[in-house]
């Protein structure tokens, strides 16, 4: 049957008419697009993504960065390396170190409590909690259930996520989808980590600790998530096998085929989908494994250093892994004004990228950002430690019970 007649029949009789093959369906959607100009239905792999009428986005946010820092020069001294290597080569001057009594869960709680200080959402209204990390304190026993207990959200869909450095943004996407679907009123997405690199390895210069929590909903949204896309492939750039203490990585392989390919792909897919160009954005934040890659990928995509500056934290606190892109976004929200548009693109090894197109709303004027510490204030509140204390705090000295 001619697909145009099928389409007409299904619209007249309000029942779906089966299409013989995918190509026909694709053509059907093109007809629908042409007919319905006022509602934007975007073709994407044959599925329809109607833009919702309701505004879904960030209702409140908060971050936490531990107070301790170690200078990369101190790490270099330990391993017989020159300070210029991490400082100039990697663009990292220092990184954050969690205290002996901190872990990904305590960081998650502190970040969430900072978010709640800015705007309190009662636990009963939280419908979902997703915590993304690659250093959950337990291999089996979710961090999300601890968060639920802390805020009294006993009816939340709670689970932990893992996708290297993009577990936090994956959590955001899950929660965003659940709010958008009308399934929950508010949801919490947290990216938190106390990551470790093998001592003496390049990652020892950058693996650090920190986290950010977002509460996503549809009431009094301060930053609307216009859209979000992902790009994922099986790319083994950085991994850790079960039972291994430290992760392994592919050296230079982590660059072009991994970080750059996925960030650039996701960014381009998103900007094409929503019809934007780099100039349309006031801020851009990319995953930041060192102080150099974000500038490089930004340049390749057409972004300027000014757009990237506010969200680029790695030179001072290192790479907080699942907390990296979320905390960069948090730093931007600390200063953003109504109407500001933000592009946030994470990258998780393994590999994939999540991209977000965000517009700050007028509601941010009513929002009490000062109720909790701002990211750059936390970055500047620091205590330096030496390598020995660093090993003690990171529990890298073999403990005998």
């Amino acid at each position: 049957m001619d697909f145009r007649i099928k389409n007409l029949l299904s619209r007249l009789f309000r029942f779906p008419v089966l299409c013989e093959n995918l190509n026909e369906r694709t053509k059907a959607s093109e007809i629908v697009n042409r007919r319905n100009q006022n509602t934007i239905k975007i073709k994407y792999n044959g599925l329809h993504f109607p833009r919702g009428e309701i505004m879904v986005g960030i209702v409140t946010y908060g971050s936490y960065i531990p107070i301790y820092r170690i200078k990369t020069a101190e790490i270099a001294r330990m391993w017989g390396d020159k300070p210029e290597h991490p400082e100039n080569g990697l663009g990292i001057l220092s990184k954050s170190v969690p205290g002996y009594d901190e872990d990904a869960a305590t960081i998650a709680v502190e970040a969430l409590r900072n978010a709640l200080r800015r705007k309190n959402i009662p636990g009963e209204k939280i419908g979902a909690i997703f915590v993304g990390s690659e250093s959950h304190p337990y291999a089996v026993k979710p961090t999300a259930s601890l968060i639920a207990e802390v805020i009294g959200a006993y009816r939340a869909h709670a689970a932990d996520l893992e996708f290297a450095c993009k577990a936090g943004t994956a959590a955001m996407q899950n929660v965003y989808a659940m709010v958008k679907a009308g399934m929950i009123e508010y949801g919490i997405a947290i990216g938190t980590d106390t990551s470790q690199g093998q001592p003496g390895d390049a990652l020892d210069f950058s693996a650090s600790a920190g986290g950010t929590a977002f509460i996503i909903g549809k009431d009094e949204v301060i930053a609307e998530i216009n859209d979000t896309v992902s790009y994922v492939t099986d790319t083994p750039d950085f991994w850790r096998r079960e039972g291994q203490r430290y992760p392994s990585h592919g050296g230079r392989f982590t660059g072009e085929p991994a970080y750059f390919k996925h960030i650039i792909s996701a960014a381009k897919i998103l900007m094409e989908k929503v019809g934007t160009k780099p100039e349309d954005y006031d801020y851009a934040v990319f995953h930041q494994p060192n102080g150099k890659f974000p500038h490089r990928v930004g340049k390749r995509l057409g972004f300027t250093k000014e757009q990237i500056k506010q969200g680029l934290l790695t030179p001072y606190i290192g790479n907080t892994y699942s907390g990296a892109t979320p905390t960069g976004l948090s730093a931007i929200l600390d200063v953003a004004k109504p109407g500001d548009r933000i592009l946030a693109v994470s990258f998780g090894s393994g590999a994939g990228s999540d991209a977000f197109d965000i517009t700050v709303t007028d509601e941010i004027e009513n929002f009490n950002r000062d109720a909790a510490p701002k990211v750059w204030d936390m970055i500047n509140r620091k205590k330096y430690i030496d390598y020995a204390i660093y090993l003690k705090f990171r529990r890298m000295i073999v403990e005998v019970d």
Partner: protein
Amino acid sequence: MVVPRFWRERRHRYSLIGTQCPVCGTVYFPPRNVCPKCGRKSLGKMEEFQLSGKGKIYSYTIVHQNVLGYKYQKPYIMAIIETPEGPKITAQIVDIEPEEVHIGMPVRAVFRRITEDGKAGIIQYGYKFVPDWEELEK
């Protein structure tokens, strides 16, 4: 493996939830089932009360002993903190050097690991206090 004894206190330790006597209004932390002042009149009626987490150091010490479970944290600062809601709380002060602590210093509660039941057992989380940086920087 010690499990229920610590699990039982989790909400109080995670979120500084104490109890308030409905008869005289006194707030207690740690939580009490009976108000010492009102006795039987308060039995079964004590209500949960959430402390703000703010406080000032009332007294403190620096522990140099070898303490089971705290070997890697010595020397650490132990303090009694007075809260605006009334109760005083015994807790560690962290993120600060011992020389910087003084009686009257404003502090704020944070969520930290307290102890763990060996390498395979449960991690006990609870409250510690850090300097109230916003207050101190005023």
